[in-house]
């Protein structure tokens, strides 16, 4: 496998980075980087961690880093989680992480997640409404991995606060069975992109076709997360198998409208990406435009109930008069 850290890979311009990922030879991971500058979304680091942890550290090669921002990879805990030394002695001044970032963290169980969220929220020094939103996102996304990915390595998560844009960027990756396999337990989908579309639809879960889901799963988590990004005019991306869906930023002039069908949102897709065994989710939350969570829930509730009504309507049959 080979992964190249470019000078810039954020959700708005992440597509070329994903296309350049080389998944062959799964026993080896080669990490290369831009020589001048490395500035990447946390989702990129979560991906590398998820890939690297599943292989013997002796199979991981990281070239000598020349970029001035190389210390960022050390600070985010990349080499530590990969169990390899940094490729060279990287000098840096350590700052307290409070209010700035969450280093790469591996979460495998429900209790680990609860402990992580309890410790994470004070670290980010957020206002109460913002803390609710971030906690909500992390909980739902990591629980999806714990319950559906069936990966012995669990979820890899990290986050970074960017003062200039007042944004928190979060990335979560796993190397589990992927969305298509999960959705196919209850639905018949042939492509990774179809599976992503269904997974983002409210009330669709891989655990059952029954409306309302099972006693433990409703199939609403990803729809809620996409809606949070949509309402706040932020990016959201999901990549599984060979397919990628990205919710694009809504222009500030456009009226709020949540759609049950993710393909009706302003989005981009790619279904010919290098195969990622598992699922990756990235999201940005711009804090100064975060809608009050309770207002967001009004819009989500309305869209969700309408989606159920639509499915109900679709099941009715009219008499055929010939």
């Amino acid at each position, binding site marked *: 496998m080979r992964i190249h850290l470019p000078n810039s890979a954020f959700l708005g311009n992440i597509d070329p980075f994903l296309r350049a990922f080389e998944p062959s030879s799964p026993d080896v991971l080669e990490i290369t980087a831009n020589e001048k500058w490395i500035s990447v979304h946390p989702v990129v680091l979560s991906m590398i961690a998820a890939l690297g942890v599943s292989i013997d550290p002796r199979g991981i090669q990281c070239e000598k880093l020349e970029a001035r921002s190389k210390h960022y990879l050390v600070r985010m805990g990349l080499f530590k989680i990969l169990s390899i030394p940094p490729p060279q002695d990287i000098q840096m001044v350590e700052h307290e992480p409070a209010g700035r970032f969450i280093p790469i963290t591996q979460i495998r169980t*429900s*209790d680990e*997640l*609860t402990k992580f*969220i*309890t410790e994470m*929220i004070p670290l980010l020094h957020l206002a*109460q409404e913002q803390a*609710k939103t971030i*906690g*909500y996102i992390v*909980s*739902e996304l990591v*629980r999806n991995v714990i319950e559906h990915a069936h990966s012995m390595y669990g979820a890899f998560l990290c986050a970074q606060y960017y003062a200039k844009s007042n944004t928190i960027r979060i990335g979560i990756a796993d190397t589990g069975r992927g969305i298509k396999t999960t959705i196919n337990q209850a639905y018949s989908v042939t492509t990774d992109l179809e599976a992503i579309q269904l997974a983002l639809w*409210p*009330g669709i879960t891989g655990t059952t076709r*029954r*409306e*309302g*889901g099972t*006693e*433990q*799963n*409703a199939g*609403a*988590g990803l729809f*809620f997360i996409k809606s949070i990004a949509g309402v706040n005019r932020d990016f959201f991306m999901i990549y599984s198998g060979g397919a990628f869906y990205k919710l694009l930023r809504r222009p500030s002039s456009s009226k709020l409208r949540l759609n049950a069908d993710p393909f009706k949102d302003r989005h981009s897709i790619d279904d010919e990406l290098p195969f990622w065994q598992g699922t990756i989710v990235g999201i940005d939350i711009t804090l100064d435009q975060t809608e009050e*969570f*309770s207002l967001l*829930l*009004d819009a*989500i*509730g309305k869209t*969700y*109930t309408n989606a*159920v*009504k639509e*499915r*109900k309507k679709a*099941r*009715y049959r009219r008499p055929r008069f010939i």
Partner: protein
Amino acid sequence: MMNIDIFNRAGAFAENKDIARDIRIKELLPALTRGEEVTLNFNKVEAATQSFIHALISDILRKHGADVLDRIAFKSCNVTVKKIIEIVVDYMLEGMGIEEDENHD
């Protein structure tokens, strides 16, 4: 009347579905099956995920029907928690409508 304190079990951010399932199976469901009334006390709970509330009450609604809501009181919920509960109840009741329709076919 049974009183279940959610904060004592799940903390200020109620998100652990395993805890929700335990409350449902060990306390909520048996009490309702015995015909008792139950108060779910959300005092000091600042937020809850949809997944937590779903794991707590969706199966109760499915097993006992909408009328069970007459015997459950949701106490001291803030606006966020109230709205999450309303979302879960709404989609469950709508969905149960579909199941009932199909059973009548």
